[in-house]
């Protein structure tokens, strides 16, 4: 493989930044959640790239664990979103302002 590892890490940074902007800009709870997934995937890409750079598989194992955690997180997060939607009849994060000062 002749592509420098830093290219992949740079791509991962770009994706992570896009995910961050998505979390901050969007109002729909589901799209915010998708942006969080984007960030998790960006970090996974960086982990796999580092695994390649160091010549062992620890990074790939970590990426594997992060996928499992992401799956668990998606299940619980979507259940919470469904619950909030039942109560407020909206998936807009601005409407869930009960604790707002």
């Amino acid at each position, binding site marked *: 493989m*002749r592509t420098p590892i830093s290219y992949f*890490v740079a791509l991962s*940074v770009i*994706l992570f930044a896009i995910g961050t902007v998505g979390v901050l800009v969007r109002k729909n709870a589901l*799209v915010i959640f*998708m942006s969080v997934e984007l960030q998790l995937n960006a970090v996974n890409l960086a982990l796999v790239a580092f695994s390649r750079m160091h010549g062992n*598989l620890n990074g790939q194992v970590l990426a594997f664990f992060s996928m499992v955690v992401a799956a668990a997180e998606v299940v619980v997060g979507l259940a919470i979103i469904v619950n909030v939607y039942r109560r407020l009849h909206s998936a*807009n994060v601005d409407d869930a302002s009960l604790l707002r000062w």
Partner: protein
Amino acid sequence: MAPDYIVFWVFAPISVGSAVAVLFQRNAVHSALFLIVNFFTLAVFYLVLGAPFLFAVQIIVYAGAIMVLFLFVIMLLGVDRDESLVERLRGQRPTAILLGLGLAAEVFVTIRASLGLARGPADFDQVVNEGGNAEALSRVLFRDYFLPFEVTSILLIVAAVAAMVLAQERERARTRAEAEAFRVAGPGGGVPT
């Protein structure tokens, strides 16, 4: 020109483009579909980086299971209408984009200073992935990371139970007076709730 170079420069723009498209879609379903495209490109990068097992897991778990769950919830909630563009905090959007660019620039500088153009060992597939990536990965997973692996199973069970508890439709607790009125008037007896 090395083949992996071509693969990178073909799929990196698709990856970034689909990620940006996730943000700019007004419709949540379109966002989800663009996110699937992004996950597929990431799977291709895993293949190039010598992780065919993660390539398969990425497609099966992410592009398959997780995105189906997302689409299912989008359809369940009927969130197919456009979201409002009202800003509760004034200037939130420009600030967010500025902060995102700042984050990217900051990490870019760090990568440039620390990684440079390092390439890693050329014999990765022969030495590290000896006997196949899945076998090599399972050797590491079940020897060095056995306890974390078992803890993950607990995490999955807890998540499954939590999802069931959260998604359960709970009967609203009745006060004693309401229960009494309900008993007297019978079901559907015009009790104001």
